[in-house]
């Protein structure tokens, strides 16, 4: 038995994030309560920045992290798409963590102090003046570490553990809002029960593929798709159940039911983290499973995934039109965007680079959009009802201009990242021969542009109500989030070449 070789440098981004999460837990025990917030924020920011640098230092690598002698052990695969998406997750999480730390919009921040206190009891009302719990930062780091593991996992067991690692802290984070706690807890319950249901499907699908291939290594499953003598029904059931679990995280129709409720109920900074980073991780997993593990059986799943993509694009766009609440509108837009991204998954190979660019561009825009949502307030609560946003351009032109740019980017207007990303993704789809899907995608984008533009009209052309919501002046925290998001949105729209080059260079999976 030759000695195990471990690529520590390749694992370092994940090690940094997980180590910082554990150190954060330790800080909860030893640092006095009043000093915890700055310490935890500094630790989280430092960890995510260091993780991003560590990912950049690994750029160009194409190897497995573990090997014995000449044999690769494929549980963690550091290749182009994995590293690009790790970097994307680290940088988006860095921005989202700043939003978690925002304290000025409402006194003490958006998070509850003691989650164990019964919601709306006298003790709960009393603790609203207290600063929020700082456990959210280690929890967020665990979730981010799980996401970074998810996009590089090369076998189904590693993928399952990473999936749970990213989900479990998020279930808790969803339930920690300070205001409207009953709704927040309800969102956590819904997300948890449906998420656990989906992960049970993952386990059963994993078992079926293991029975079919005799291995859970994605490359091995791909080989078995050609050569295995086991009954092919095992492969079909396995692919189907695995797809259910992954499409649930990606919020594709018909597994999208949780998305609007959880996006609305969760504290807005957590929603931003989910809409930006979890989307990247979920599609990173989907891309890897279908490109590496199931490429040889593409004929078997192509049809069903196409149907799901069409349902997601059309369903998301149609439901978005009817929404009266800005967070629900963004949730349905995130569902429709999952449909566009599915084109990139179905197109396989050549579309991987464009799909990754789309994920990065969409992540920046949507995090900034949720940051703006968290700033527009009726007293202590967020003004999420769209009618309350009428005439915002008269009272707070700066915020309205920023939100207009973000809405135009989501609608895919030229000179924003939304346009370049959609254009690239759809042309990659056409090149892969998925013309029908792309036509549906274009129609869906046209429908989806309507609710975005209606928001823009509402902002500028309507008269504000006398008791219009106020826009809280953001502290440097939320200010940086909005500025970074808008800057990336415009930069990737005007000069996308830089990131597109990186994405297309990083678009090949490691061949076995």
């Amino acid at each position, binding site marked *: 038995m030759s000695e195990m070789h471990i690529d520590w440098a390749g694992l370092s981004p994940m090690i940094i994030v997980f180590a910082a999460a554990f150190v954060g837990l330790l800080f909860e025990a030893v640092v006095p309560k009043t000093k915890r917030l700055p310490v935890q924020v500094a630790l989280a920011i430092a960890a995510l920045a260091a993780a991003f640098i560590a990912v950049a230092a690994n750029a160009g690598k194409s190897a497995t992290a573990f090997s014995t002698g000449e044999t690769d052990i494929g549980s963690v695969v550091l290749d182009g798409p994995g590293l690009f998406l790790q970097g994307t997750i680290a940088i988006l999480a860095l921005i989202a963590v700043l939003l978690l730390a925002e304290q000025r919009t409402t006194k003490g921040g958006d998070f509850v102090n003691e989650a164990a206190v019964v*919601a709306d009891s006298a003790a709960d009302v009393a603790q609203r003046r207290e600063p929020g719990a700082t456990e959210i930062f280690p929890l967020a780091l665990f979730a981010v570490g799980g996401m970074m593991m998810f996009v590089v996992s090369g076998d189904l*067991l590693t993928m*399952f553990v990473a999936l749970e690692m990213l989900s479990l802290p998020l279930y808790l984070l969803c339930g920690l809002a300070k205001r409207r706690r009953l709704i927040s807890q309800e969102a956590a319950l819904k997300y948890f029960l449906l998420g656990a249901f989906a992960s049970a499907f993952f*386990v059963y699908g994993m078992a079926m593929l293991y029975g079919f291939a005799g291995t859970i290594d994605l490359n091995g499953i791909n080989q078995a798709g050609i050569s295995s003598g086991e009954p092919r029904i095992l492969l079909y059931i396995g692919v189907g159940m695995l797809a259910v679990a992954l499409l649930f995280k990606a919020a594709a129709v018909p597994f999208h039911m949780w998305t609007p409720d959880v996006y609305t109920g969760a504290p807005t900074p957590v929603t931003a983290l989910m809409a930006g980073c979890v989307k990247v991780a979920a599609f990173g997993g989907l891309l890897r499973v279908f490109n590496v593990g199931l490429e040889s059986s593409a004929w078997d799943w192509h049809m069903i995934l196409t149907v799901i993509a069409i349902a997601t694009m059309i369903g998301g766009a149609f439901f978005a039109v009817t929404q009266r609440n800005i967070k629900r509108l963004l949730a349905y837009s995130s569902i429709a965007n999952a449909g566009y991204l599915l084109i990139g998954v179905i197109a396989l190979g050549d579309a991987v680079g464009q799909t990754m660019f789309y994920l990065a561009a969409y992540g920046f825009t949507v995090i900034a959009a949720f940051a703006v949502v968290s700033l527009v307030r009726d007293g202590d609560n967020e003004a999420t009802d769209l009618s309350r946003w009428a005439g915002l351009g008269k009272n707070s032109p700066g915020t309205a201009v920023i939100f207009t740019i973000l809405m135009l980017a989501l609608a895919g207007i030229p000179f924003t990242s939304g346009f370049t990303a959609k254009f690239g993704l759809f042309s990659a789809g056409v090149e892969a021969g998925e013309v029908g899907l792309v036509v549906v995608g274009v129609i869906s984008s046209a429908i989806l542009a309507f609710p975005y533009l209606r928001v823009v009209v509402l902002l500028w052309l309507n008269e504000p109500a006398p008791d219009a919501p106020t826009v809280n002046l953001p502290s440097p925290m939320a200010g940086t989030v909005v500025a970074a998001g808008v800057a990336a949105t415009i930069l990737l729209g005007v000069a996308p070449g830089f990131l597109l080059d990186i994405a297309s260079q990083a678009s090949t999976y490691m061949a076995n």
Partner: protein
Amino acid sequence: MSPEHYLILSAALFTIGAIGVMVRRNSIVVFMCIELMLNAGNLALVTFSRTTGTIDGQIMAFFVMAVAAAEVVIGLAIIMAIYRSRRSASVDDANLLKA
């Protein structure tokens, strides 16, 4: 018994669990049904470990058990918090988020 019997049992357990998730209203019972589905997956993993002659399946079953235990901790914490504020663990009573 041949391995097929174990697979049929595992499929039956998974189906019972999945139906339970959809028809039962108490969140604790829903959660127990999800655990049943996970254990059905474990049974299938161990059976396939036997049929394919590899040890991976049995090791995976251990991982699934450990993850399921972590999931119980999180799940019961969330259900407890809801029960204490509402005096009900029914998933039908949690309806504030209806659009």
